[in-house]
């Protein structure tokens, strides 16, 4: 096994001297805090944004004060329907028989203003009804014959934080395990052909299986470092930003352990796949063309939790590489528990994927055409 260590050491030395890989990792580490900072600012701005309501008719007494207090500014207009198209966010026509509301659903500001107005009107109506009932000597609670007292079994704020993590963390883990070592993988495979070093390497008596294992270990190591560094920077950024104010965002020891285990499996699998594809290529640029589809193949399952948050599949779904890792990690974060059968199936699936890719890479690495065509 000496050749494995020799190749690993040399590949790591080259990777650490390669600006492309170092810049990619640095950008990944910086990307999460920057993206989260932007999200935080947008969220804060949206919450404190004042929307304009164009109106006609007489505003019921007291409602104007309530609207102003909730960031809805009243502005008299001639035609609320026409004004709601562009001039104001929402149009309202007050009349003794009720309120006509005009808004354009294709405008996000109109949707937000509409929701805010509904909430205010609901509170206004409830207050007026309660006051009228009291005037007639009736207890307003009669309107609420079955009052509900919630007893959440875990902190709703913490749950919201976990839900946020369960969306983003698997996504970052999968994409960074792929992209963190991509440059190194191509350099180590297609780069050998491009630099004309492959022939000399294959001329050494070192077993080719060991040479390939050394390369895969080096690429896996750099992918793992990139993924864990990106996640660490994201968790650190979350503790500093307003988006999570009052919420303790962090991974439980169990979720952290599951994440590291999945990161190791994903990094090893992706390294084998990218090395196999890189071995097919004659140069770095061609290698990049070969691995580009991998982005799409990985991003779809990685983002499924974003689109279907309550996706709870049968055990068979855990055979699908990448999707299985995303689901296991999501469950570990949200429920702070591991479904061991799901983790076992996921582990076997990723190991089989990695082994198959490694075998393919080995076959490609030792075929005669590799040298003849180079």
């Amino acid at each position, binding site marked *: 096994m000496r050749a494995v260590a020799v190749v690993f050491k040399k590949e790591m030395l080259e990777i650490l001297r390669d600006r492309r890989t170092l810049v990619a990792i640095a950008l990944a580490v910086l990307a999460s805090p920057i993206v989260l900072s932007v999200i935080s600012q947008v969220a804060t701005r949206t919450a404190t944004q004042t929307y304009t309501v164009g109106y006609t008719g007489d505003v019921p007494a007291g409602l104007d004060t309530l609207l102003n207090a909730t960031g809805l500014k009243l502005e008299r207009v001639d035609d609320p329907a026409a004004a709601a198209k562009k001039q104001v966010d929402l149009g309202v026509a007050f009349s003794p028989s009720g309120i006509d509301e005009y808004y354009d659903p294709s405008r996000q500001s109109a949707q937000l203003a509409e929701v805010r107005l509904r909430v205010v009107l609901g509170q206004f109506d409830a207050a007026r009804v309660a006051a009228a009932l009291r005037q007639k000597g009736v207890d307003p609670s009669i309107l609420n014959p079955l009052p509900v007292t919630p007893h959440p079994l875990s902190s709703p704020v913490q749950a919201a934080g976990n839900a946020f993590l369960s969306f983003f963390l698997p996504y970052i883990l999968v994409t960074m395990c792929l992209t963190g070592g991509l440059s190194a993988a191509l350099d180590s495979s297609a780069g050998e052909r491009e*630099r004309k070093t492959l022939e*000399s390497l294959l001329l050494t*008596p070192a*077993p080719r299986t060991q040479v390939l294992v050394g390369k895969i270990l080096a690429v896996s190591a750099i992918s793992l470092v990139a993924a864990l560094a990106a996640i660490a920077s994201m968790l650190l950024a979350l503790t500093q930003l307003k988006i999570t104010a009052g919420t303790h965002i962090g991974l439980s020891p169990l979720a952290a352990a599951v994440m590291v285990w999945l990161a190791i499996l994903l990094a090893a699998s992706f390294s084998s796949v990218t090395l196999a594809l890189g071995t097919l290529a004659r140069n770095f640029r061609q290698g990049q063309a070969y691995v580009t589809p991998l982005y799409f193949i990985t991003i779809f399952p990685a983002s499924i939790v974003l689109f279907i948050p309550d996706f709870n599949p049968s055990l068979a779904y855990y055979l699908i590489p990448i999707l299985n890792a995303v689901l296991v990690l999501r469950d570990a974060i949200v429920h702070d528990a591991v479904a061991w059968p799901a983790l076992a199936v996921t582990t076997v699936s990723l190991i089989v994927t990695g082994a198959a890719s490694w075998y393919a890479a080995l076959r490609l690495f030792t075929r005669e055409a590799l*040298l003849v065509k180079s």
Partner: protein
Amino acid sequence: MSGVAVKVDRLAKNLGKNEVLRGISFEANSGEIFGLLGPNGAGKTTTLRVICTLLQPDAGSVGVLGFDTRVEPQEVRRRVGVVTAEIGVYPRLSARENIAYFAELSGVTDGELNSRVGAVIDRLDMRSFAGQRAESLSSGQKQKVAIARAIVHDPPVLMFDEPTSNLDVLASREIREFMIESKQRGKCVIFSTHVLHDAERLCDRVVIIHRGKVVASGTTADVRGPNRDLEDSFLDLVGAR
């Protein structure tokens, strides 16, 4: 001369649909420079690649110091050093690191590594640039790195495939001197070239390959025969004169 170091027996090799080698045979001995001659596309590089186990023979056999390339390829690789025209080096490693990497992969032990690498650097007069990254080296310096990594494990058989084709006059001369020195140390040196003038000056014996077949073999004087030089003999052999 010593015994047979490389024995090629009725070797045939196809690459795709091309019949590159069509039953060639020759023997190269220790302590001699053996010329593998022929025009571009004759099959010289393919022959060398089969000898050093990068390619498998389709028919016939190749033995290196008694080891069959098909049966014991790793034993063959331990005993062979190859220098090619394409000087591929790892650009982000220094010259010394490049050499040490191949030494370790060739089985040089940790205890011997520094002394072996240092000895090769001294022998090829590389001290002045051994610590520099390979990306900053000249073609001649890179060729020295390529030679150093091929000989660092002290193989008894050395093969040079068009080693001077990309080099200037000075660097080419150093390569030629190195081949002569290796021969004097008892190595079997196989020199593949299409530059017949070089072969005539260096080789003890030669084989001329044309379209995958041996068309002449023997001592350089035998093959030259009554002609002025090897080039004229070659033109006669292939009917181009």
